């Protein structure tokens, strides 16, 4: 769709100005669908108390390992806690940690990337060496090392250690892409023109370069929310992330979920679907955003 529009003859009537949302939905229907999923997740996360039928912490020994039923849509776990309610509350954990760590990692990465491209020379070399070091690890491995280093640090009910652990592996990946974009912007004729016109470095960076790396930044930010949610789920699954009794999808799959494998498959099925759906939505949204914002740009 986007590819085709660039090859259309110039004689077409000027397109009517539509709102960005309508335009995005029209061009990227899959992206719009994924946005609906994300919106539903956000809604469930913010209004958990109203959406969830039960308190996610309520232990009910009368209905341990109850299969899905009209009372408990997704069944209950080994403590008789309602799985549907825990999944609703779990979206809060996933979104807060996923979004925050991606935001922190991507923003720091973008700043370093633009700085690295702009200053060049020694500074660029040094920053790139450090990024090379960080890039030598799969996300989850580096996150685990950081978890081993930072241990638990919880402020205001938010696992800061987890956010740091997931943000650090994201940083170099964003840095590299933003740096590449900034480098290509730096040699653009309009940057030369701006320089010839006598504009200051700061003005060139902020008025001419930064707007042109916002697209990759936004795309990476969305795409890495997906990775961050996945990383959080993996770490919690391993028992090194969010801890009981906080409702978190990865955590719901670990520990006693595996023990009741054959007796209560719903304990495994539904949290996994929640993780997959969330990551799927953010991946698809990031993908569509990329096609929409910049067809030339590939992650």
């Amino acid at each position: 769709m986007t590819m085709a529009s660039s090859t259309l003859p110039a004689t077409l009537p000027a397109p009517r100005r539509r709102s960005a949302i309508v335009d995005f939905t029209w061009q990227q229907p899959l992206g719009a669908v994924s946005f609906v999923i994300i919106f539903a997740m956000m809604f469930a996360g913010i209004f958990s108390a109203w959406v969830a039928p039960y308190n996610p912490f309520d232990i009910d020994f009368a209905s341990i390992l109850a299969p899905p039923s009209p009372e408990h849509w997704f069944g209950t776990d080994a403590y008789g806690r309602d799985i549907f309610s825990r999944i609703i509350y779990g979206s809060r954990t996933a979104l807060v940690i996923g979004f925050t760590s991606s935001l922190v990692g991507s923003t720091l990465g973008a700043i370093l990337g633009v700085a690295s491209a702009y200053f060049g020379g020694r500074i660029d070399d040094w920053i790139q060496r450090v990024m090379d070091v960080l890039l030598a690890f799969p996300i989850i491995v580096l996150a685990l090392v950081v978890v081993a280093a930072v241990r638990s640090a919880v402020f205001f009910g938010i696992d800061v250690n987890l956010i740091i652990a997931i943000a650090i592996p994201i940083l170099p990946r964003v840095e590299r892409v933003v740096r590449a974009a900034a480098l290509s912007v730096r040699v653009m004729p309009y940057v030369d023109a701006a320089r010839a016109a006598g504009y200051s470095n700061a003005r060139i960076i902020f008025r001419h370069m930064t707007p042109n790396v916002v697209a990759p930044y936004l795309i990476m930010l969305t795409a890495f929310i997906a990775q961050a949610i996945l990383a959080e789920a993996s770490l919690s699954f391993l028992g090194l992330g969010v801890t009981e009794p906080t409702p978190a999808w990865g955590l719901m799959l670990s520990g006693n979920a595996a023990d009741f494998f054959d007796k209560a498959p719903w304990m495994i099925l539904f949290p996994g679907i929640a993780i997959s759906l969330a990551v799927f939505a953010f991946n698809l949204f990031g993908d569509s955003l990329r096609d929409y914002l910049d067809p030339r740009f590939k992650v």
Partner: protein
Amino acid sequence: MLHYTLNRLLLMIPTLFGVAVLVFFMLRVVPGDVVEVKLRGDGGAVSQEMIDMERKRLGLDKPLLNQFADWMVGLATLDLGKSMWTDRPVSEEIGTRLELSLQVAIMATIIAVLIAIPLGTTAALLRDTWVDYLVRIITIGGLSIPSFWFGMLIMLGLLYFSGWLPPITFTPIYVDPVANLTQLIWPALAVGYRYCAVTARMIRSSLLEVLSEDYIRTARAKGVFERLVVSRHALRNALLPAITVIGLEFTFLIGGLVVTEQVFNLNGIGKLFVQSVSRNDFTLIQGMVMLIAVFYVFTNLVIDLLYALFDPRIRYG
């Protein structure tokens, strides 16, 4: 070419040194070490003297720079030290588990590549049809479904449909290939899905790019059969970028294995890594991190050399 390779090998040293510095100091800046986990783990009262003694025995009481120097000297002589938890040499701990993980990784690679090539090619050739959309959904699914959960689903499926679960004791392939494969094929499938998805996406996009090249139009204009155009002219060139992805994802398989080995209860390096992290076993963590880093830089070098091999336009000075 030789000059280039030697140069690259030399350039690995600063990167690996950086990795060593990073992991060493990162683990030690924040208080908490293996001794605390080991002695206080059961919640029993342990005197400070015992803790100090154990720290002294492990060399954790020395100044950080001395500890680092000791470790560096060890690394230079390829001695990774001893695990702080089990007191066995790190190389031994890793060595006994490497075979299993490596085999799963190789099997996953083979499965992934064999499926990814036809999948990516079909999607590119039938671009913007329902087939392409289906492949897109399948591949984004591969990026989204956590491999450990996919592994659980596989187990659940096996249990449900055949009432059978894979054995949990490892048999080397040269001892009993059947027992070996029936155990390891499932984790390989679980981590292979993501791998396949990434590769198929890469093949699709690079094939699309190649198909718009002038020489493809020339070939078509000459009247070459479309099948030949795709297989001889396009796919060969499109596979080059895919090599990068295949190579890099191979090292990243370790990431998938870290979690998936838990599900299948496999005693591989992934499980060892998680264990050493939860035990604060610094030497073992360091050893494994160095191993992964070495693996990564070598894979990168091999990828670049393969590029030169397959693409005559690329010459390294």
